């Protein structure tokens, strides 16, 4: 069973340093929680890649194709000849294409965000009751910086020691404070 140890820090540098030490001690990849994005996370924990751009591109392509086909197929099915002009007229249909490209791009970007950030979580069951596999400290939304690591029971003591040595102001086990 995985136990979560959370160290609470007063400044981002100490939290980053603790995260680096945890990773260096082969305890796994820690998770940082903070009130603002921390600069330099990728230098310590490695580069992050996201699939959001692929979602955006896919959405934009689907939207563009759908927009043009919507206008063109409608024009063919319900033909309305005007003065011998072509039934499928590109200039105005490009505007429909453009708008739906953006619309679908936006919608798919949001879907990509939810998928890659694994949101929503813990929501539908309990209106935010603590999910044991996703420790959370409310202070990390205000002015504290938390480092969380999931490890085996044998490694808990070692993780706590590393966090303490890095300057943790408090150590918590999931939601319960142990020291």
């Amino acid at each position: 069973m995985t136990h979560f140890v959370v160290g609470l820090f007063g400044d981002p540098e100490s939290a980053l340093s603790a995260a680096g030490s945890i990773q260096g001690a082969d305890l796994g990849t820690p998770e940082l929680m903070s009130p603002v994005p921390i600069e330099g996370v990728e230098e310590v924990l490695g580069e992050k890649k996201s699939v959001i751009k692929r979602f955006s591109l896919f959405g934009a392509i689907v939207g563009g194709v759908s927009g043009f086909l919507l206008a063109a197929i409608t024009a063919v099915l319900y033909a309305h000849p005007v003065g011998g002009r072509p039934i499928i007229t590109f200039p105005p249909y490009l505007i429909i294409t453009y708008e739906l490209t953006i619309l679908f791009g936006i919608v798919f970007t949001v879907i990509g965000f939810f998928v890659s950030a694994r949101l929503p979580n813990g929501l539908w069951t309990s209106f935010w009751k603590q999910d044991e596999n996703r420790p959370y400290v409310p202070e990390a939304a205000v002015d504290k910086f938390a480092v969380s690591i999931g490890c085996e029971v044998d490694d808990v003591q070692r993780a706590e020691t590393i966090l303490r040595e890095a300057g943790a102001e408090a150590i918590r086990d999931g939601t319960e404070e142990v020291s």
Partner: protein
Amino acid sequence: MQGDANPLKYTDIHNDVVASIVETGSNYYVALATALALTLICFFFPWFYQLYYGIGAAGMNHPGVWGTYLASFIFWIGLSHSGTLLSCVLHITNSSWRKAMYRSAEAMTLFSLVVAAMMVMVHVGRPWFIHWTIPYPNQMEMWPNFRSPLLFDVMAITTYITGSTVFIYMGSIPDFAAVRDRTRGWRNTMYSLLSLGWRGTDTEWHRLHWAYTFLAVLIIPLAVSVHSIVSWDFAMSIVPALHQTIFAPYFVVGAIYSGTAGIVTVMFVLRKFMDFGEYITELHFDNLGKLLLVLSLLWSYINLVEVFTGFYSGASGEIEALRYRLFGFYAPLYWEMITFCAVLPLLCAFKRFRTSFVPMLFLSIAINIGMYTERFLIVATSLSRQYLPDAWGLYVPSAVEISILVGTLALFTTLFLLFVKIFPSVSMYEVKETMDTPKKIPAAASGGSLA
């Protein structure tokens, strides 16, 4: 950007913003009740009256078949422009002064779009047929005309409302989570739902940054397209003074101009009545003033070009429409517009003026009065002077139209007042980014654990 020598701490902004949501004084309720009452009396009752007695209750009739409803539609669409657009541009260019004000500016966009959409429903007379504008299979085999700018409008505004809603919501998720932890009861349930279980992990911040940036990139051209398309509603009609190629940039510049002035008004209100004086500072008014100056010069230039091309065309219809606008029945409105939108904003050349809150408020209101007048003149003077003299006529708004015009302001105010009690009106996490990050306290001075 960090290290802007902001003396405030993370907890200050946190406490101030949470207090702005959960602590409500009696003045707020008075303001909300007044706005709501005005919305009902000035907007909904006259609208229902018009629905009952027919569109004849409005002053629109041949040749002035477009009136204040459409002018209001253009005005509110325009006002919506600077919020999300400015926010996106400043986000991409990494301008830190955006951070204290963008949330409310984006809300302004959203509610302006809602009011604009309402104006379309008021204008069409029979809003229960509004679904006819949406392409869907039906038994009448009646599909919208995809070559019409009116359908472009439906597509563009739907996309813009969706984009603006998503943009303000995504940017608010971390703040919803922060407020969630400080509230109880129904508020806690609401913010738990809205925050989607956000914990502020490094992965979540990374994903939010990219998603937010992609959205900004998508929304900037969208915003430009929306008001270009609104301009084509008029420019594609073969009416003197409307059938002009300059209309798209004219409308876009006017929209950003009016929206920026709207932001100044909203910032003043937030600063004065929501106690955000420490976050919305002279710097914001200074920068917005510079922007207003540039936009006013651009707007003046386009107006000058419009007058010159009308004069230089040599076409009698065009020249008559121009003469009528400058010296005809509506001329006082034209020169009021020039005074408010081209002359007064020149005061923004002086830093002392830009950093004075009350004068900036009056200027921003004057600009938007001028910009509403501009939209009114576009629809009223053009249709009053078409090619054939026997089709000339005057348009004067009826009491119902004037009441609904006042009601739109009340409707917008009501929505905004509700917003400030639901959304954190200042972005907590982005303002924190402008502050100095907490520094490591030496062990001897730290005084033990947090517990």
